[in-house]
């Protein structure tokens, strides 16, 4: 019998902290939604003890964020729970756009093969949170405390004092850092007197999740001005358990209370499905939205992530997906700082990079919304002109905007990047998230991405045109056993052979020449890849000095200072953080260890 995640109630348990005076923890994460859970799991499985607080005792109410993007699934893989998500979720790559009752174009979000994950899965948010919560429960150094509401917050020089209300009354604990992942109505943000700025859109939308046996294909269908809902838009998505999400645009004048009543909702659904359709309403919600963000995602020792920091329209699925990218960006930086491997300034780059990403998401989301909901008569005329042209003209299909679906931001202006000094073609520029590729490892088929991430990785490509020297192998091994965790990965193209001792170096076979193509590799080409799988630097030739300099830059170390734990950032033993290469590390590198 499958767990009923929708009605699951988690027990409040009294924590030993409640009977002690202000116990200090390395990290307190506020909010056990997808972003808070992802952050906490990432930290905990890398040896950083985490306290995760949630003011409630249940998972997402309603299906809410249902579209989880390829990048999110890649991140969940590193968190050890992607398989359950993809097994349960409905995978899709294709979207269709209709004008009135006519199909005007079809798009495929993942037209090329050679990726482990689909472009998207649709999965109710309560499943995502449920699977993450179960993963969290496996980690002994992650304490998930339900019914713990943050009611006070005070920043001190070396910690934040967090006051928490529980069914047993209040208690206080100390955190070196607080991650506020407590949603769009963030209590932490309010307690700190901070706000968000942006645009509120004057439109209302109705979500009707209906349970039915239907023949629609597993695709995203978007209608402009359909005969069954004239002058407005409608979006249809399939979810697991025979549930279908129907999103009706209602207009600003719609009454949000009245429109939720079944007598209003049922005729709208019947108009789409037909009078004889048999279905039941699973969840109904009327919503409005804003595209907005906090001016700064970092305030001292408090870091904002997910909806607490930024908000977008639902079109494009950029809310939860960008929040999980926040978690991915933040977790390794917190770990590096807490373990004394990087200066506190590395956390400033979290804010810098993710504010940049939020701006990109807000820009895309605002443009989609302006197309779907024209704000003036002339805007509507151009919108309709583009739609009408799209039936016959390819170019106009690219103008039609029913949502630009979430793809991870290329952190192109990050201070952590080492700018290119050599020429490369393709998409893997410094700041780009690494793309997947089919590889062979230990004589069996696999994927590239599981071999990257968790730690820094230095990837070197070799093929038959140049011998792999003992000097190169020696220097790679030197990097991998250095003070800053950095794995060495050798990617072998056609004709490459290695006979030397490869202990300490992972080896992948680029059997389909896909890694070489997607990363524009030639013999000797070298990439430095961050723990969150973003490209930090790349060169045509490997040089240990340049890798070390790029590594120092990628952890925000001041110029001239090479990686290594300086005295001022020695690990804080009282926090009981484990060394950077702990046993937990194998969670990420399993399958990535050398088989030689």
């Amino acid at each position, binding site marked *: 019998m499958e767990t009923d995640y929708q009605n699951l109630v988690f027990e409040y348990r009294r924590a030993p902290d409640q009977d002690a005076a202000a116990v200090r923890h390395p990290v307190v994460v506020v909010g056990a939604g997808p972003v808070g859970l992802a952050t906490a799991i990432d930290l905990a499985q890398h040896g950083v003890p985490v306290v995760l607080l949630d003011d409630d005792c249940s998972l997402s109410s309603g299906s809410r964020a249902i579209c989880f993007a390829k990048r999110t699934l890649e991140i969940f893989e590193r968190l050890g729970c992607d398989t359950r998500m993809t097994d349960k979720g409905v995978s899709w790559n294709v979207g269709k756009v209709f004008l009135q009752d006519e199909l005007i174009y079809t*798009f495929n*979000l993942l037209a090329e093969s050679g990726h482990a994950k689909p472009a998207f899965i649709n999965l109710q948010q309560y499943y995502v949170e449920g699977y993450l919560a179960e993963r969290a429960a496996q980690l002994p150094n992650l304490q998930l405390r339900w019914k713990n509401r943050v009611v006070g917050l005070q920043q001190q020089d070396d910690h934040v004092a967090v006051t928490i209300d529980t069914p047993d009354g209040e208690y206080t604990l100390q955190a070196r850092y607080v991650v506020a992942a407590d949603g769009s109505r963030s209590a932490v943000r309010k307690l700190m007197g901070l706000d968000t700025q942006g*645009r509120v859109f004057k439109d209302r939308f109705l979500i009707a999740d209906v349970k039915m046996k239907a023949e629609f294909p597993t695709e995203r269908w978007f209608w402009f001005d359909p005969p069954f809902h004239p002058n407005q838009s409608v979006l249809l998505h399939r979810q697991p358990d025979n549930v279908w999400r129907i999103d009706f645009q209602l207009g600003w004048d719609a009454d949000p209370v009245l429109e939720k009543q079944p007598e209003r909702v049922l005729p709208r659904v019947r108009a789409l499905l037909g009078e004889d359709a048999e279905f039941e309403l699973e969840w109904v919600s009327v919503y409005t939205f804003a595209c907005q963000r906090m001016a700064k995602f970092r305030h001292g020792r408090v870091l904002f992530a997910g909806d607490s920091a930024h908000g977008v329209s639902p079109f494009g699925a950029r809310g939860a997906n960008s929040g999980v990218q926040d978690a991915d960006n933040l977790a390794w930086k917190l770990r590096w700082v807490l373990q004394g491997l990087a200066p506190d300034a590395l956390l400033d780059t979290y804010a810098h990079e993710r504010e940049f990403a939020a*701006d*990109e998401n807000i*820009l*895309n989301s*605002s*443009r989609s919304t*302006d197309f779907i909901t024209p*704000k*003036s008569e*002339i805007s509507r*005329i*151009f919108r*309709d*002109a*583009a739609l*009408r*042209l799209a039936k016959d*003209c390819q*170019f*106009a299909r*690219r*103008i039609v*905007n029913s949502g*630009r*679906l979430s*793809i991870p931001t290329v952190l192109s202006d990050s201070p952590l990047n080492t700018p290119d000094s050599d020429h490369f073609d393709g998409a893997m520029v410094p700041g780009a998230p690494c793309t997947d590729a089919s590889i062979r490892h230990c004589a069996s088929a696999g994927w590239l991405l599981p071999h990257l991430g968790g730690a820094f990785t230095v990837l070197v490509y070799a093929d038959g045109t140049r011998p792999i020297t003992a000097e190169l192998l020696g220097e790679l091994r030197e990097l991998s056993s250095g003070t800053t965790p950095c794995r060495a990965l050798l990617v072998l193209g056609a004709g490459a052979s290695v006979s030397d001792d490869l202990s300490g170096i992972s080896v992948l076979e680029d059997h389909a020449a896909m890694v070489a193509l997607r990363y524009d590799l030639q013999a000797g080409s070298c990439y430095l890849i961050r723990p969150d799988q973003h490209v930090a630097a790349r060169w045509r030739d490997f040089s240990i000095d340049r890798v070390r300099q790029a590594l120092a830059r990628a952890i925000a170390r001041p110029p001239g200072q090479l990686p290594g734990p300086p005295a001022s950032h020695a690990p804080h033993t009282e926090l009981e953080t484990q060394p950077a290469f702990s046993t937990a590390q194998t969670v990420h590198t399993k399958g990535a260890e050398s088989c030689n």
Partner: protein
Amino acid sequence: MQLNTEPNLPNPDAFYEALIEMHQDLSVADSQMVNAKLILLLGNQIGDMDVLREAMALARKGITPAANPAANPVASAGSEGRTI
């Protein structure tokens, strides 16, 4: 300035006549739709965002918004949204 504001049409009178004829017998609403489609078609033909921005700025030059401007600021022109 990349926008060509020097004469480029071999027969300006014929162009102008064709433009007016395009709207023959249309209501104002239909004419607006036809104009909008024409602008989209020509924009794609030009295909150069700098030229198009210059043309847009020149077209709007000297025209002040009425007392009741649309309250919504236009999303700032930054990096292009990636089309999927």
